[in-house]
């Protein structure tokens, strides 16, 4: 693991030495390798390692810790500052309902996350409502309806309609009529390079003006995370990110890639298939996970 590797690199730098360019080169190589193996993007890693180098060179090695521990601390702090603040929950709109739109690639966990967030906000005293905006995937509407039923949250759908904009508009009007104050729009999984589908979700944004657009990404995503996040952000200017399936053993480097490339906050993480398996994002925990 990284701390041990760095300790062995620095074992000849005794006592009150300083970190200099020479002894840090090997350490930077080890850090770079650790980040790439954790799925942090190649270019994001390059930039990050340079930032660490700038902070580390010339640093006094404190008596109480080893040079290796010192470098790990610099890396850890640098990661946390890039991963963003502790989550601020979704802010309620001044005029209800608060509208949240879930977007992302196929299979990333949007529908499940919509259910999780609806359940979470219901437990906080809100009146959630869900809109079945995926008119393509077989049984997607059934899936959302079953989740809704399991938490006693209404799900809006227009049977047979393929007009996603209309479904969302009618759904929000229905939510208002029923006095619901937070609405989750589930959308179909789509590729960032699919012009027609990216246009659809842009049109939904224009038509219903969501207060929050959440980009839902799979926590085990590799190098491609920068491409998808960048493109979704370019089309939609999303407000936050949800990272799913972090109950597995993926290191989750996609978190750093996405944070670095979009500068948007990671808000929630999925840690299981059940609707209660959702947590607020903690940058320090994510940093430790990425470093392995």
């Amino acid at each position, binding site marked *: 693991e990284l701390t041990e590797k760095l300790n062995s690199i620095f074992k000849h730098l005794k006592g009150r030495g300083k970190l200099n360019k020479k002894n840090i080169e090997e350490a930077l190589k080890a850090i770079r390798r650790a980040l790439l193996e954790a799925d942090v993007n190649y270019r994001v890693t390059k930039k990050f390692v340079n930032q660490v180098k700038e902070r580390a060179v010339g640093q006094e090695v404190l008596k109480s810790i080893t040079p290796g521990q010192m470098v790990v601390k610099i890396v850890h702090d640098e990661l946390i500052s890039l991963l963003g603040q502790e989550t601020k929950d979704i802010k309620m709109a001044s005029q209800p309902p608060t509208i949240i739109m879930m977007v992302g690639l196929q*299979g990333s966990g949007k529908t499940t996350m919509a259910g999780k967030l609806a359940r979470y906000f219901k437990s906080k005293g809100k009146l959630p409502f869900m809109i079945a905006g995926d008119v393509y995937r077989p049984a997607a509407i059934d899936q959302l309806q079953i989740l809704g039923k399991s938490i006693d949250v209404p799900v809006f759908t227009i049977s047979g309609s393929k007009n996603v904009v209309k479904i969302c508009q009618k759904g929000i009007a229905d939510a208002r009529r029923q006095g619901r104050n937070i609405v989750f729009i589930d959308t179909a999984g789509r590729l960032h390079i699919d012009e027609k589908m990216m246009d659809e979700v842009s049109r939904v944004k224009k038509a219903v003006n969501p207060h929050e657009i959440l980009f839902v990404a799979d926590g085990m995503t590799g190098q491609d995370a920068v491409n998808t996040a960048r493109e979704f952000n370019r089309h939609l200017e999303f407000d936050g990110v949800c990272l799913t399936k972090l109950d597995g053993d*993926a290191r989750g480097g996609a978190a750093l890639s996405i944070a670095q490339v979009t500068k948007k906050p990671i808000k929630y993480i999925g840690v299981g298939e059940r609707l209660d398996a959702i947590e607020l994002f903690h940058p320090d925990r994510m940093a430790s996970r990425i470093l392995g």
Partner: protein
Amino acid sequence: IRRHVKIDDDMIDELEEILIQADFGVGTSLKIIENIKKRIKEEKIKESNQVPSLLKSEVTKILMSEEARFGLSDAKPHVIMMIGVNGTGKTTTIGKMALRFRKEGKKVLLGASDTFRAAAIEQLEVWADRAKVDVVRHASGSDPASVAFDSLKAAKSRGTDVVIIDTAGRLHTNINLMQELKKIRKVLKKIMPDAPHETLLSLDATTGQNALQQARIFKQHLDITGLVVTKLDGTAKGGIIVAIKEELNVPVKLIGVGEKIDDLRDFSAKEFAGALFE
């Protein structure tokens, strides 16, 4: 690579960037680059425009496999079990395979052994309907192994050519769920000792290094005969399959290139290697 005329450190760095960004992983990328450097020396290559073909041949070499043919055995029925992590495209791939086999004149039966996830059975039923094949299902929440058992029993009595068992997505880190898959296998073997004749692990092309760990653990528990790499119609390259082939010798048999029923292709090592530079 085209920008450089001679082969130098910058060009080697550029190679490394291509491989790592294609999810090859650090270890595999370094190994391939060492092989390329060796060949450059041995074959006295001076022009950098020759390097892409070196890379393609090195990657193709690793990925070529005689067992990579996807087809049916003589078993009647031939049983295929589909496994993999959540959301990787198992159910959709089964729909695609079902149509392919039916078009080849085979009698196909699907087994809805994902009895856990919301609307999983309904989803498979839509695909069965689209492919015009039958599906065996129980109530949601019933025992996945009993659905698999009944599917194979029905297939035997109906003279079905191929049975495809859909299973719920699961993380390789969940021991209980890995045990559940083993139970499904055991139950199939009660009817046919050689079943399942094919166990396919689905991998999402966007998955990074964790795909290697997935393959390791699923293989350790279930003896996988092939991989299906899905969502290659996106921008992810799926390079991790090279490390998987090298370490575990599991070949990629099929790739998913879209969400429609005919978006299924046989894996071609040459095409995969060629796509690395796109």
